[in-house]
C-alpha cells in the first residue's frame, strides 16, 4: 500500500512540473537575480546572503533592546508596576517603520524585475503558454516574494522583541499574545509597503508613455527610498508626538501608514490614546484599498507593458543630444587635465546617476544625511541666538559633507558589470597614478556647487559675510581633507573591480568611520562656534589642517611603486606566496 507521504510526493512531483509552477520558479529566480532589458550589473549577492542581510537589522536591534527591558535595570531605575505595552510602544513603532522600510526598499531595488520583461516575452510567448498563465504565475511570484521578505525581515524581532518585553512578566500568555500581535502588525505593515511600491510602479506604467516612464521611474525610485529612510530616521520622534499632541493639531500624521499600524497595535493591546485609536481604524481599510489598487494597476500595467513589448522593441530612440554647456567645456579643460581624467570622470559620473544599484545606494545614504541635517536645523531653530552661530547651525553642512564623502566612497566599491571593464584594462596605463585624483574630483563635484551656491548665501544672509566666508572656507578645506583621508591607497577605477571580500580591518574601518563622524560633524562645529565668536581664533584650525593633510600624504608617499598601480581585482595579501617554479 502506498503511504500518504508517497502519494503527496507523487502529487507534488506532478504539479511542480506543470507549466504554471515552472513559470513561477522562473519568475521568482528573475526577481531575485534581477531583470530589466539591460545587462546584469554585477551585484548578484545570491538569495541566501540577501535574506540574511535583510534579517540582520531586526535581529540586531532586538538584541540591543534587551538592555532596555532588563528587569534588573528597571528595578535599579525604580520602575515598578509598569505597563509593558506602553513602554514598548516607541520600539514597536520602530519595528513597524523598519519592516516597511526594508520591504519597501527591496521592492524598489527589484522594481524592474517585478513585471515580466522583454527577455521573458521573447522566451515565453513563442511557447504554447497562454498569456494569462504568465500573468498569474508572475503575480503569484511577486506575492510570494512579498510574503517571504515580510517573514524574513520580521522573523528575528518576532521572537526576540516579545522575549525582551515579556522578561519581567510572569505569564507565558503575555509573551504569546504580545508575539502574535507583533507578528500580525509588522507582517501587515511589510505587505502594505510592498504593495504601495507595486501600486506606484503599476500606476506609472499605466499612465506614462514607455519612454517617459523610464525617465520618471528613476526619480520616483530615489524619492521612495528617501521617504523610507526618512520614515526610519524619524521613528524615534513620532510615537512621542502621537502621545503628547492631539491628532487635530497634527493632521498630517494620518497620512503616515506606519502610524495606522501603530494605532492598530495599540488597539489590540487595549490602549486608549485617542489619536492612535483613530489612526488604528485606518489600517485594515488602507491595506484592503492598497491590495485592490496594486492588483488593478498590476493587471492594467501588464496589459500595457508586457503585451506591447514587440511593438516597443524596434522604435528608434528620438532622444536628442544635450547641448554641451560652456561650463562643462571649461571644467574639462581646467579641472580634468588628462585624457584619463576626462574619459573616466564622465564614466564615473554617469554610472552614479544611471546605474540602479549605485543610484539607490547613494540615495539611501544621502537621505540619511539629509534627515540628520534636518535634525540639526530643527535644533538650531530652538537654540538661543548669540553673536556667533550655534554649533547646531554650523553642523548642517558638515553632516551633509560627511555623508556625501563616505557615501560616494562606499558606492565606488559597488561593481558595475565587471566583465565590461576589459576596455579599461586595454586602454588605461596602470602606471598612471590618477585614480585618487579622479575619485577626489568626483567627490568634490558633489560638494563644492551647493556649498558655494546655497550654503554661502544662506549663511551670509543669517550671519553676515565674514562668518559665512570663514565657515564655507572651513567646510571646503575639511571636505578636501576628509576626501583625502577616505581615499588613502585608493588605486582602482570606481565600479570596475569585483566587490571586495570582508576583511579583518573592515570592523576597524567601521569604528573609524563612527569616530570620524564624531570628529568631523560634531566636534568641529562645536570648536568653530567657539572660534567664530572671535574670528581670529579660526587660526587654530590651521595646525589641525596641516596634520590632517600630512598624515594621508605621508602614507601615500611611503607606498612602494607596486602598491600604487591601477588594479582591477583586489587580491588579499597571502601569508605564503607560492613561486610555482614547476610551471
Amino acid at each position, binding site marked *: 500500500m502506498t503511504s500518504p507521504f508517497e502519494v503527496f510526493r507523487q502529487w507534488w512531483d506532478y504539479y511542480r512540473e506543470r507549466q504554471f509552477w515552472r513559470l513561477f520558479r522562473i519568475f521568482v529566480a528573475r526577481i531575485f537575480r534581477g531583470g*530589466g*532589458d*539591460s*545587462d546584469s*550589473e554585477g551585484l548578484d549577492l545570491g538569495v541566501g546572503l540577501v535574506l540574511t542581510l535583510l534579517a540582520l537589522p531586526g535581529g540586531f536591534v532586538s538584541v540591543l533592546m534587551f538592555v532596555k527591558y532588563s528587569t534588573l535595570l528597571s528595578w535599579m531605575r525604580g520602575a515598578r508596576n509598569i505597563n509593558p505595552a506602553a513602554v514598548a510602544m516607541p520600539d514597536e513603532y520602530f519595528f513597524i517603520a523598519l519592516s516597511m522600510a526594508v520591504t519597501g526598499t527591496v521592492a524598489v531595488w527589484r522594481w524592474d524585475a517585478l513585471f515580466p520583461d522583454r527577455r521573458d516575452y521573447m522566451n515565453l510567448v513563442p511557447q504554447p503558454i497562454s498569456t494569462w498563465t504568465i500573468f498569474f504565475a508572475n503575480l503569484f511570484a511577486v506575492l510570494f516574494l512579498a510574503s517571504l521578505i515580510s517573514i524574513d525581515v520580521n522573523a528575528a524581532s518576532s521572537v526576540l522583541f516579545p522575549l525582551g518585553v515579556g522578561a519581567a512578566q510572569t505569564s507565558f500568555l503575555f509573551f504569546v499574545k504580545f508575539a502574535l500581535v507583533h507578528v500580525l502588525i509588522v507582517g501587515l505593515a511589510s505587505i502594505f509597503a510592498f504593495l504601495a511600491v507595486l501600486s506606484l510602479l503599476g500606476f506609472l506604467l499605466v499612465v506614462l508613455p514607455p519612454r517617459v516612464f523610464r525617465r520618471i521611474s528613476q526619480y520616483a525610485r530615489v524619492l521612495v527610498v528617501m521617504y523610507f529612510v526618512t520614515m526610519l530616521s524619524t521613528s524615534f520622534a513620532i510615537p512621542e508626538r502621537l502621545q503628547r499632541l492631539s491628532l487635530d493639531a497634527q493632521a498630517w500624521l494620518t497620512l503616515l501608514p506606519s502610524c495606522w499600524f501603530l494605532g492598530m497595535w495599540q488597539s489590540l493591546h487595549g490602549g486608549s490614546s485617542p489619536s492612535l485609536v483613530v489612526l488604528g481604524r485606518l489600517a485594515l481599510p488602507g491595506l484592503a484599498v492598497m491590495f485592490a489598487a496594486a492588483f488593478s494597476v498590476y493587471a492594467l500595467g501588464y496589459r500595457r507593458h508586457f503585451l506591447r513589448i514587440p511593438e516597443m522593441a524596434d522604435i*528608434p*530612440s528620438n*532622444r*536628442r*543630444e544635450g547641448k554641451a554647456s560652456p561650463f562643462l567645456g571649461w571644467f574639462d579643460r581646467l579641472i580634468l587635465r588628462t*585624457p*584619463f581624467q*576626462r*574619459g*573616466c570622470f*564622465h*564614466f564615473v559620473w*554617469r*554610472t552614479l546617476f*544611471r*546605474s540602479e544599484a549605485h543610484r539607490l545606494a547613494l540615495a539611501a545614504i544621502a537621505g540619511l544625511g539629509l534627515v540628520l541635517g534636518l535634525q540639526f536645523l530643527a535644533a538650531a531653530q530652538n537654540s538661543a541666538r548669540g553673536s556667533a552661530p550655534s554649533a547646531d547651525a554650523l553642523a548642517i553642512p558638515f553632516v551633509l559633507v560627511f555623508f556625501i564623502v563616505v557615501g560616494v566612497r562606499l558606492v565606488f566599491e559597488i561593481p*558595475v*558589470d565587471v*566583465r*565590461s571593464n*576589459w*576596455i*579599461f*584594462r*586595454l*586602454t*588605461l*596605463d*596602470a*602606471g598612471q597614478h590618477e585614480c585618487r585624483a579622479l575619485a577626489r574630483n568626483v567627490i568634490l563635484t558633489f560638494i563644492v556647487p551647493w556649498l558655494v551656491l546655497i550654503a554661502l548665501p544662506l549663511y551670509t544672509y543669517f550671519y553676515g559675510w565674514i562668518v559665512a566666508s570663514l565657515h564655507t572656507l572651513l567646510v571646503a578645506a575639511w571636505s578636501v581633507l576628509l576626501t583625502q583621508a577616505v581615499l588613502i591607497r585608493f588605486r582602482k577605477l570606481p565600479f570596475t573591480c569585483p566587490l571586495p571580500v570582508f576583511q579583518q580591518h573592515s570592523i576597524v574601518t567601521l569604528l573609524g568611520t563612527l569616530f570620524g563622524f564624531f570628529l568631523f560633524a560634531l566636534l568641529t562645529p562645536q570648536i568653530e562656534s567657539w572660534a567664530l565668536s572671535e574670528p581670529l581664533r579660526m587660526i587654530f584650525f590651521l595646525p589641525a589642517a596641516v596634520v590632517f593633510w600630512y598624515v594621508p600624504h605621508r602614507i601615500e608617499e611611503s607606498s612602494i611603486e607596486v602598491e600604487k598601480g591601477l588594479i582591477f581585482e583586489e587580491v588579499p595579501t597571502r601569508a605564503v606566496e607560492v613561486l*610555482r617554479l*614547476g*610551471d
Partner: protein
Amino acid sequence: MLEALHLTKRYASLPAVQDLSFTLRPGQVLGCLGPNGSGKSTTVKMLTGLLEPTRGVVQLYGQDIRHDLPGFRKRLGYVPEEAHLYPYLTGWEYLEMIATLRGMPRTKLAITIDSLLELFSMHPHRFASIGSYSKGMRQRILLIAALMDNPDIFIFDEPLSGLDVTSALIFKNLVHELGRSGKLVFYCSHVLEVVEKVCTDVLILRKGTVIAQDSVINIRKILGQSLENTFLHLVDDVDTARVASDIVSVMSAA
C-alpha cells in the same frame, strides 16, 4: 611586424596554449581557426596584453609589448568575442569615452565618431542606451570603437557575431581594405567561409598547439580541398553527415 614567440599559458599547471609562435606582417590578414577550447581566446588575450604568458613573448617590431603596454595598445584596435559594454551609457557616450581615453584630439573626435556611426547605420540610435541595443548594434559599436583611432594593428575575435548581412559584407570588404593599406590584422573566427574569403594566411589550433600555419592558397593546394574540409580533416575527424543523421533519429524517437 607582430611576433608571438613560444607563447605558453598554463592555468594551475593545465596548459591552455603551448609553444605558439607566428609572425604577422604589415598587409597580412592572419586567420585563426580552431574548435572550442583550442586556445584561441587565450591567444588573443595574450596578444592584446590582457593576459600575461606563462612563458614566451609577444613582440612588436622586436620590442616586447609588455615593456610599453600603453604604447602598444594605442596602436591596437581590438574587438572582443563578447560585446560587454556598459548598458546605461548611450552608444555615443561610450565611443566618446573610448576616444577620450585613447587621447584622440577633441576637434577630431566628434567628427570621426559621427561619420563612423553614419557609415555603420548607427547614427539614428546614437543617443539610445546600449542596454536597449540588439546584439548586432552592440557589435557595430565595438567595431567603431576599434577603428576610430586609426590603429596599426587589429585583433578581431568573432567580429561578425550578430551582424546583419549588409554590415557583415561591409566588414569583410573593410578587412580587405585594412590589409591592403598595410595594417596588421589578426582574425579569429569559427566561420570558415569568412576566414577563407578575408584572410591571406591561416593558423589552425588544436588543444593549444598549432597544427597548421600557411597561406590559405597553399593549404588548399597541399590538401586539395576547401578550407572547411581541411579544417575538419586536421582538427576533428568527425563524420558530420552521420552526426546530423543521428540527431534526426533522436528527434524522431522523441
